[in-house]
């Protein structure tokens, strides 16, 4: 589906974060792109690889350190976020909200966007660093280097998460 009358729109998102709260923005955008007929590509690098690593994707946690505006329900200062158990509590609260709103968990969401046509790639360099192979990733994910990704992203709107 083309909006400028010349070429179909393409969206390429680089996913570099592995926390539960940062897993959703790229997935929601990729899903919205597919629903609108925009070609979507997701490139997972570094901590983002956790989102498509079979053994990790069901266990993402919320980052409670480093966000000085952390909320909801109450504003808690960033040093509290470092206390053992706080991230687990925030994670369980977020998971419960996700379930109440009937949003898909990460694994189901990744599978859903892939079924909708989103292409999913693991960054080769990060995978080497983390000692991962293609077999560790969700089925259907490809392994690519940065240059290949940039070729795919030609004429795409590129986002970095």
């Amino acid at each position, binding site marked *: *589906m083309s909006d400028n009358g010349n070429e179909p729109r393409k969206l390429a998102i680089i996913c570099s974060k592995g926390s539960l709260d940062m897993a959703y923005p790229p997935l*929601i955008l990729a899903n919205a792109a*597919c*629903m*609108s*007929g925009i070609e979507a590509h997701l490139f997972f690098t570094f901590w983002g690889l956790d989102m498509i690593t079979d053994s990790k994707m069901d266990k993402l946690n919320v980052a409670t350190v480093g966000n000085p505006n952390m909320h909801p329900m109450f504003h808690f200062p960033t040093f509290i976020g470092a206390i053992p158990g706080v991230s687990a509590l925030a994670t369980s609260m977020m998971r419960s909200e996700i379930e109440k709103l009937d*949003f*898909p968990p990460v694994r189901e969401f990744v599978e*859903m966007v892939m*079924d909708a046509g989103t292409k999913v790639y693991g960054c080769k360099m990060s995978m080497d660093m983390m000692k991962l192979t293609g077999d560790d990733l969700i089925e259907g994910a490809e392994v690519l280097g940065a240059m290949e990704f940039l070729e795919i992203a030609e004429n795409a709107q590129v986002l970095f998460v």
Partner: protein
Amino acid sequence: MSEQIVNNILETVEFDEDGYMVDPNAWTPQLGEAIASDLGINLTDRHWVVINFARKEFEENGEPPTLRRITKRTDVNTKELYQLFPGGAAKTAAKISGLGKPTGCI
């Protein structure tokens, strides 16, 4: 449907600039066929499973269902949904079902 017939039917209702029916209550299955034909889609029984479900949800809840709800409540899975309604499943299905522009994210 011939192009002439399609145009005749489409002229009986109003569409917005994006191609969505302005009044969802004015939809009829024949209009659905005409809109689909205009989009180059040949409706099969599988399409109607989705269209009928979307219309039913709209009538019962006042809102069309999200694509995920369609895949959870009917036997049409995500892959098939995108094959049935190419060019952006949410938009295409909404246009053919006479429902407004989709606003959900899921």
